[in-house]
């Protein structure tokens, strides 16, 4: 399996995890109550909304875009396309920065850690590392060509 295929698989896992959080956020899954877990506290805080849209919904959209780009990049036709490597590094880099901001909020503002959010942050960090390796491998191929 190529690095880009691994990226696509991880991005799909991210889509599902973010979908779980979004469904939980709107009360379709789990309990909507305070004290039943740290995710409830995080999701009911004022930082759970970004630009008027729930952060969990942003998460689904983000991973869906990442999954689409990674699927395209994993296709044989685009295996030599350096631009897709740049796009993957940029997307996952943004994800790492945003996750870092959310972890800061959880630790120092909300005082609660949601383990599902930490799971998402771990996936994003792994995606970024693999995307960087893919970018470097692509860069080497272009130079050697």
């Amino acid at each position, binding site marked *: *399996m*190529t690095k880009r*295929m691994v990226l*696509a*698989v991880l991005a*799909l*896992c991210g*889509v*599902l995890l973010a*979908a*779980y959080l979004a*469904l939980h956020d709107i*009360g*379709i*899954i*789990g*309990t*909507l*109550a*305070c*004290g*039943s877990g740290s995710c*409830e*506290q995080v999701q*009911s*805080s*004022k930082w759970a909304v970004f630009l008027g849209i729930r952060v969990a919904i942003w998460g689904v959209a983000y991973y869906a875009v990442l999954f689409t780009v990674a*699927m395209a990049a*994993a296709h*044989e036709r685009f295996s*030599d396309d350096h631009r897709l490597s740049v796009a993957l590094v940029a997307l996952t880099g943004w994800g790492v920065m945003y996750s870092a901001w959310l972890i800061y909020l959880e630790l120092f*503002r*909300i*005082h*609660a850690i949601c383990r599902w959010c930490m799971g998402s942050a771990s996936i994003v960090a792994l995606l970024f590392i693999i995307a960087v390796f893919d970018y470097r491998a692509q860069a080497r*191929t272009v130079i*050697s*060509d």
Partner: protein
Amino acid sequence: MAKKRANGGQKPNPVKSTKSSSATRGFYILIVVIAIVGIAGLSYLAAKPQGAASQWDSSLPSLNAMGHVEGSDSAQLEVIEFADFECPICGQFATLTEPDIRTHLIDSGVVRIRYMDFPLSMHRNTWNAHRAAWCAGDQGKFWPMHDGIYRYQDSWNSEATSNPDKVLAGIAQGIGLDMAQYTSCVDTKKYQAQLQANELEANRRHVDATPTFVFGTKVVANYLTYDQFKAEVMQAIARQKDAAKK
């Protein structure tokens, strides 16, 4: 300039090509399997009944002398609500669901609500709000204060301020309390013992989340819409009638 292939334009190795196409097939199968398992898992979780429902321990003494009650003494059912003023979900219930409950179920004598304080340790300003509500109750205005505290929750909660008493005093003034009496009550923590008794009662009954509702013998720890609340009320009344027949 056309980009050269990595193998320098040589014919593709048939063994390598077969391996590659097999890996690609495996990749697509893996994607489909993850998607199916994930969607099935989410659908299963969405279909499961929400909220932790359990049975109320009727062997423990009743809460008749505790909390604050809204509604008629002759109402068909008393619903007990364990709530925390800083809990956003309790706030959602108080601002979105409770007005309809008042209009359709309390004013018509179907139910009365007993509000039991359950300040959660995760909310740093909640005790101030509970004390403020009790001090408003001292002047017969617990429920208007209750509504104001929830309505302006974003202004006094621990995410908004480290000095909630100032904002809460503004709410108290807004509902027309005697401020000298209110301030003295809040400053001396006049009702701290009653509040702590409510909290201990919740712990004794294994309440661990807010809002938690008790409909007769059924305990529901979850946010409820008006329709869900009304359905629980009607079922509890039916259970009471069945029990009375036996």
